[in-house]
Structures are given as C-alpha cells and as structure tokens.
C-alpha cells in the first residue's frame, strides 16, 4: 500500500513535470509568450515537490499491520 502510494506519487510527479514543461507552459517559440495554462510553472514545481514528498510518504507511513 505504502509502496503503491510512493510509486504513484513519483509517477504523477514526473508526469506533472513533463506535462507542465512541454504542454502547459509557454511554447518554445518567442512568438508565444503566454503559458497555455495559467500558473503552469507552479504546476511544474508541484510536480518536483510531489516526487520528493514521495520519499517522506515512504518513510512516514507505517507498515501494514498484520492483525
């Protein structure tokens, strides 16, 4: 359970980074100066933070208790 959550956080984090960078932020060409989605850079940073928070989740969540 904990492993699943950690791995999904990492995957979502990286996916968010890649999406924000290539698809949501301003296109590469200087003809386009607006991001496609507002606050796309904030989403990118969120993606980075998610990946590293996964480590916290992995360490902090308790083992599945065998009752």
């Amino acid at each position, binding site marked *: 359970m904990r492993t699943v959550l950690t791995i999904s956080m990492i995957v979502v984090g990286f996916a968010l980074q890649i999406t924000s960078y290539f698809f949501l932020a301003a296109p590469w060409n200087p*003809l*386009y*100066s607006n991001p496609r989605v507002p606050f796309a850079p904030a989403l990118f940073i969120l993606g980075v933070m998610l990946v590293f928070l996964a480590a916290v989740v992995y360490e902090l969540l308790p083992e599945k208790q065998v009752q």
Partner: protein
Amino acid sequence: MTAVARYAMVIDLDRCTGCRACMMACKVENNTPEANFWMYVFRFEEGQYPNTHIWFMPRPCMHCDNPPCAKVCPVGARYKRLDGLVATDWDRCIGCRYCEVACPYGVNYFNWKKPSKNYYLDWQDEDVQKVTGGAVPPYRNPDLDQPYGVERRRTAGGGRLMGVIEKCTFCVHRVERGQQPACVQNCPLFALHFGDLDDPNSTVSQLLRRKPSFRLLEELGTEPRVYYVGGHPPSTESRQIEEVKARV
C-alpha cells in the same frame, strides 16, 4: 490566416548626416527618460588625419526574427508579435534585465529611477517649481498608455514605471494607426524608411531590391529586421567621435 505585415526598417547610410533629429523625435514621441536613447546615432571616424572619413549610423532596436532578448525573458514580457515587432509588456516585466544582457546590440534601457526623477527635469524640485509654478508641462503622449496588439498588451512608451526594461518599439502606437515611426517621419533627409517587406511596392522592398544591403552582426544569427544600404558595417577602424556615456 489573415495576412499580417512583415515590418522592417531600411536605413540609408549614404543620406544620414548625423543630425540626430531621429533621436529627438523618438524621445519626444515616446517620452523616454534621461540618458535613454531608444534610437541612437553613432558618429564614426575612420582613418588618420588628414585622411579621415566620418560617417553616421542610426541604431534603433533591430526587432530580430530570432530575438535573443525574447528567448531569454523569464516571464514572456519581451515577445515577438506576428507583424515582426519585438515588444515589451511593461505590465508584466519584472526587471531582471536578462534581455538587456542578452542583446548583442545594446538597445535596452532600464528604468533605474522613479518616474518623478527619471526625466531631464525633476518636476518636484523647488528651483524648477519656481519656473513652472507647480504645473507639469504636458509632455506625456496619451497614446502610450493604451494597450496595443492583438493580445492587448501595454507595450508603448517609456519611463512611467520604475524597475522595468524598455526599448524602441518601432512606435507601435503609431504603426497600428498606419503611421510611420517618429524617427522615420522626422528624418529631414529621408534616410530612414519603414514598411512592409511583404508588400513589393513599399519603400523598404524597393530599396532592398535596388541597393545591396547588410545587417548588423548577422553572423550571430539574430536575423535583424533593420537593413542598412549604401555604406558598410562598422569595422575595427571605426571609432566614435565622442563617447556618449550619458549615465543617470
């Protein structure tokens, strides 16, 4: 897709006498602050006395097709319009001056001072107020505060906001009304020309067809939109007659 113009400027170095009327016109039209020369005219001397040659080179912003300034702007305040003008949105600029250090031509100017102190006269100064009686002469061009372009961004004029970067706009507020930039309009010798490269009958297209032309620092790949005819690029021999170090 609607046809958008492809604006460019052609400067005839054979005609320029270095009178710098264009610099003054630009200043008045765009309300540029002290020591900011959006349009600047180099006065060069080559050779040794008595075999010297003096020539003059106006230098506006090049409005490059591959603009290093627009590429590095972190927030997209400096951007290239579809009609070719490279504009600065003073509403969005954060004043990092990255465009200024990235520009090979040195055309960017930063507002170092607050607006009341940014001009040649400090309207709040007591001695000045003895003359003006507290009134501020109507030097501001009201066209400059409007938004321009398809995206409706505030890209015209200068000096009104501390801590942002500005540069030559090809007088976007005039061009959008079908007029010529102030420097072009005011040149007494028709040394400056502005127009649409896509229009084969425009002055710029005709000049470029008739005379060989060059652009400044072409080897950098910036693809400037300012062409020079009837002269040569500054060489290692070219030195300025007087060094302008107008610092604020």
